[in-house]
């Protein structure tokens, strides 16, 4: 559990934010310049705000009102920087082991061999950082932070400097860390990464907290869709793989009904599926003779319109919600309003490889 509150005046820009991060992955989402890095640097102790308070697992790391500000080396917070920041004069092994000797006796963390194996960096141990690719550097940086036996891991856009294939290579490692139970504060401006990793989502905009809560709830909030972007906005569904049909489609069980997707997944796996709002069609009646396979019934919960012709509709289905992007004309034509029953229609092929992520919880 991490509690953060801080206020800092940069002159041209003022940051005033407070949030709580429970166990699991808390994603800090926001555009560049929204103050994300200031927040993580405050948590790490690399920056001292005008006023602030940081409490990690019951220990006060910063309390400006009481004059408490622990230096970074006494906070036991692992920090994976966007630019890796490996020590150029040390080989990979020495980089990895750098923090281990400073960890207090009794601190727990994964063993060297396990981290090396998990990150697949066994062949790099004798190399210098100068001879590593971007993806290799990112993995070594994650390993180095882990081996300092931190109580919390900060990751400041660890994938932003990497191309798509490298990103796809690193993401599973972050998922494994999450599933191993290490609390992570993950900074990103990528909705795809956030949707895949976050348990809790904190949205930061122009120095203020715009929303904070369960990732499913925040991503399905129509009032925030503009923050995530017209193409990227979309809700999360949790699902379990029931099996693969004869035609190759994967059958999933969600809280609201069966969903078929074209991506293969192992039977019994727990998945989170990201449903892009722009891929969802709404219908007042259960449609007949439609090619789309997935038709989920629900009830309109909230509608947000923007200054153009766009409307964002949140459909509630028990504990889950789906977000749909429509035109304002369609909202009027269908008579959509909060409480109106409705069906969400999604094409199986609309769920892309990236939108499916396995969770091990």
């Amino acid at each position: 559990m991490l509690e953060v509150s801080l206020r800092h005046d940069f002159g041209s820009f003022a940051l005033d934010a407070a949030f709580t991060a429970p166990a699991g992955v808390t994603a800090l989402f926001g555009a560049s310049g929204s103050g994300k890095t200031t927040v993580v640097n405050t948590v790490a102790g690399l920056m001292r705000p005008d006023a602030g308070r940081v409490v990690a697992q019951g220990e006060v790391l910063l309390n400006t009102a009481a004059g408490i500000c622990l230096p970074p080396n006494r906070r036991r917070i692992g920090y994976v920087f966007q630019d890796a920041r490996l020590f150029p004069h040390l080989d990979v092994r020495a980089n990895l082991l750098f923090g281990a000797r400073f960890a207090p006796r009794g601190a727990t963390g994964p063993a060297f061999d396990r981290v090396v194996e998990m990150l697949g960096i066994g062949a790099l141990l004798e190399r210098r950082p100068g001879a590593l690719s971007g993806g290799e550097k990112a993995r070594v940086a994650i390993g180095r932070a882990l081996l300092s036996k931190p109580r919390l891991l900060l990751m400041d856009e660890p994938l932003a400097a990497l191309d798509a294939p490298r990103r796809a290579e690193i993401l599973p490692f972050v998922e494994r860390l999450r599933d191993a139970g290490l609390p992570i504060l993950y900074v990103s401006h990528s909705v795809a990464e956030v949707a895949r990793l976050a348990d809790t989502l904190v949205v930061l905009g122009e120095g203020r907290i715009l929303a904070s809560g369960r990732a499913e709830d925040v991503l399905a909030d129509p009032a925030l869709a503009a923050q995530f972007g017209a193409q990227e906005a979309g809700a999360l569904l949790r699902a379990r793989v029931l099996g693969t049909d004869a035609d190759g489609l994967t059958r999933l069980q969600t809280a609201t009904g069966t969903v078929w997707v074209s991506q293969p997944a192992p039977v019994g796996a727990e998945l989170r599926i990201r449903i892009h709002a722009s891929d969802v069609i709404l219908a007042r009646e259960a449609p007949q003779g439609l090619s789309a396979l997935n038709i989920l019934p629900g009830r309109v919960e909230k509608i947000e319109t923007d200054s153009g012709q766009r409307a964002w509709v949140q459909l509630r289905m028990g504990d889950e919600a789906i977000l749909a992007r429509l035109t304002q004309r369609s909202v009027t034509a269908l008579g959509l309003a909060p409480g109106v029953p409705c069906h969400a229609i999604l094409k199986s092929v609309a769920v892309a490889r990236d939108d499916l992520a396995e969770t091990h919880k």
Partner: protein
Amino acid sequence: MTGLTPEEATALMLSLRVAGVAVLTSLPVGLAVAMVLARGRWPGLWLLNALVHLPLILPPVVTGYFLLLAFGRKGPVGAFLEQAFGLVFAFRWTGAALAAAVMGFPLMVRAMRLAIEAVDPRLEEAASTLGASRLAVFRSVTLPLILPGVIAGAVLAFAKAMGEFGATITFVSNIPGQTQTLPLAIYTALQLPGQSALAGRLALISVIVAIGAVLLSEFIARRVAARIRGA
């Protein structure tokens, strides 16, 4: 030492000892001052900076005169050091070493300061988040990264110390075997009739020592730099 007369050998050994002691004792002080100048954020730093550079711009004779005033047997610092530690500078080789250290100090600090300013402070931040205290960060990250600059500074100061003349002769005079370093011995030989051959030989020794020092430092700096770059 074949081929060297006893006088030549004495002057050479004295010069090496004076320069070596001057560099080794001023190294930690120079590193600390370079650190403060590179990283300090105090308003009075320009004064320290000016003070450090003074021996570079003052006539060496003036520097020697100030040393005489301060560190002579009747000078305030000299008298105190003699009473408290029995340390005497006046007309001793230790005084020659002090003069050499002071004259080489600005060169040493400049080289080290440039090296410190080239270190990416974000690497030091990373080390601190991994649990390293400020001292540990300096020892395990900063120092290895600035090592080429430290070596360059030490070599510059050594070369300056080997060639120092004005401050030395003003402060501790020209006593054979005690304060008569190579440059002073060359000067003395040139003052006496029929000693120009000796002066020439001493000058040649100076050149050989200087070239040797530069080559050695180049070699060390290259090896260190290659290690640090991570090739």
